[in-house]
């Protein structure tokens, strides 16, 4: 198992280098002189020279790429054009929400999706099966942003003045706020990576609430994430339900399941120990593949629910041509995606010993 993980980790290097090449090339492909783009109207010849020296743009392309790799490896993604902040700070501020949203949506989609899929498979061709599959077909065909808007309308307007009211926007209710952990723990002097990690944890409302025992913050943060998580998770839920159904049906028709039944095992044991466990590999694959679309979904949903995550910030950055932000975020998202795929691969190896030994 360990050698499998090490091998997979080593394979990450070419992929990560490739990602950096792509993001580096993307920013070089921007039409126009970077100096004009970055400085805008303030760009004069003299200023541009200083600017280019400062950013190393007077060097050759390979030198520039080496410098870029070095910077990224140290967590330096440059500064934003709009307000001259470190892109890494913006990431530390915005990323936690997107991750919280993605994780909540994944949990929702996998639990409900697997459950529905199992129910559908065990009651094949029943009304429940047909209903689940019709729902799943509609679910994969819905635009996330549309579903988000409808959910917002239903839960905050139709259900207004009922206990089921859920707020349609923003991250926290007025009056509830995050207390920076640096302040709570007296760690204002941290530098570099440690400071970044602390900011990241601190800005995650859920982690922050758990670490400081702030139940009011925890409840409020989760309450505001319900609708976005439902919106983001629905497509994946449908995909997972369909995959669970077909995978479980495949396995339940296999010889070893007949053997298990014929030796008198209880049906429950047959289904869960022999059936579902063997059906899990394609399901895990599909959940892993969904992480990408869940992340994309989070980006779309943030703009609807006015949530301060990386998605809404990235769209702002694109519309205002804030390239360092776009570059930083692209690298970040790709790296997250690659690592989740790694985790999925490792979980296969755990589920299926044959993969480990190949």
């Amino acid at each position, binding site marked *: 198992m360990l050698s499998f993980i090490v091998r997979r980790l080593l394979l990450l290097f070419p*992929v990560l280098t*490739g990602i950096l090449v792509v993001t580096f090339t*993307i920013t070089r492909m921007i039409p126009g002189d970077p100096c004009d783009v970055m400085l805008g109207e303030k760009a004069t010849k003299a200023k541009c020279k200083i600017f280019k020296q400062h950013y190393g743009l007077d060097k050759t392309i390979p030198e520039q790429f080496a410098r870029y790799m070095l910077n990224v490896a140290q967590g330096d993604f440059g500064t934003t054009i709009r307000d001259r902040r470190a892109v890494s700070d913006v990431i530390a501020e915005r990323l936690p929400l997107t991750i919280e949203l993605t994780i909540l949506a994944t949990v929702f989609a996998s639990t409900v999706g697997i459950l529905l899929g199992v129910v559908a498979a065990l009651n094949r061709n029943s009304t429940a099966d047909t209903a689940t599959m019709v729902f799943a*077909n509609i679910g*994969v065909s*819905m635009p996330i942003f549309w579903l988000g808007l409808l959910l*917002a309308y239903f839960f905050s307007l139709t259900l207004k003045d009922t206990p089921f009211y859920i707020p349609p926007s923003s991250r926290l209710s007025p009056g509830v706020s995050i207390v920076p952990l640096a302040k709570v723990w007296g760690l204002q002097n941290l530098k570099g990576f440690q400071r970044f990690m602390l900011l990241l944890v601190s800005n995650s409302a859920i982690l922050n609430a758990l670490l400081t025992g702030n139940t009011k913050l925890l409840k409020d943060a989760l309450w505001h994430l319900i609708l976005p998580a439902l919106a983001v998770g629905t497509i994946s839920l449908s995909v997972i339900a369909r995959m669970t159904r077909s995978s479980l049906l495949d396995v339940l028709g296999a010889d070893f399941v007949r053997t298990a039944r014929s030796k008198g095992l209880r049906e429950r044991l047959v289904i869960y120990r022999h059936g579902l466990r063997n059906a899990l590999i394609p399901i895990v694959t599909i959940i892993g593949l969904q992480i990408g*679309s869940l*992340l994309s979904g989070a980006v779309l949903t943030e703009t609807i629910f006015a949530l301060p995550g990386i998605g809404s910030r990235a769209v702002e950055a694109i519309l205002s041509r804030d390239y360092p932000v776009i570059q930083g975020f692209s690298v970040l998202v790709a790296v997250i*995606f690659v690592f989740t795929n790694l985790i999925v691969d490792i979980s296969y190896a755990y589920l299926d010993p044959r993969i480990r030994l190949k």
Partner: protein
Amino acid sequence: MTAATAELPLVASSPIADESPARLALRRLLQHRSAQVGFVMLLLLILTALFADRIAPFDPLLPLENVVRRSTPCIHLLGCAADQPQHLMGIDGNNRDLFSRVVYGSRLSLQVGITTVSAAILVGGLLGALAGFLGGWPDDLIMRALDILMAFPSLLLAISIVAVLGPGLINSLLAIAITEIPVYARVVRAGVVAVKDHDFVTASRALGASRMRLLFVRVLPSSLTPLIVQGTLGIATAILSAAALSFLGLGAEFPIPEWGLMLGEERNSVFNAPHLVLFPGIAIMVTVLSFNLIGDGLRDALDPRLHH
């Protein structure tokens, strides 16, 4: 069934005996329940798109006079006063008839889906075919490069590409097509690798067929089946992605009647004029659903494992 085959019950009971695989697949497709639903929906959509200028009562681009902005639908059958002009889906934020815009949107959506997927299949298919057929270092080079494209979630990659090219309908389509390339390259490569060492290919080579002929006449047709399935499902994804980019303000621009853009323009009025959000969304959903249903039907019809 003829008398001759009746004497051979084993052969006669198998539909393969008297039907070509293509006809068999077509028959299975037409009997597939979700594919039937999908075909009916798609047919209606195509008709809507073809006759958009006859169906739409108003110009989709020009603001109307004497209408109330964002007013609710006025349908005579449902009790709207007969002296008022009928607006089946209401009036949008720019005083345009929403129904006409949704009808015209079907043209754009179908075009978007088909052009992006065709472009992606053309480029991706060619790359995949070359990789699979040549093997060795060209294979590694092409497939590893495409793997890196796949390291980005597709919609987010499309967003990054639009960031470079600049927002706009054509650029967003280009971006979506680029993100779809690796999928088709993989499908075609897998098909090519699976058959290129088969006897019929070797025989063709022994007969002196050129490499081009081998690839395009002997090897590529075998990748067609998965490509059709993937392409149909791909149209659904492409339509969704294009709508998403337009919704974010990165795709189609004012005043194009694009469903995603219509949603984006009116997203802030969801609480006071929900119909402006409801109808374009239903249009997207129905279109995407029809391609998904047909894609599912095709997959089942073409799957040899399900042939009995």
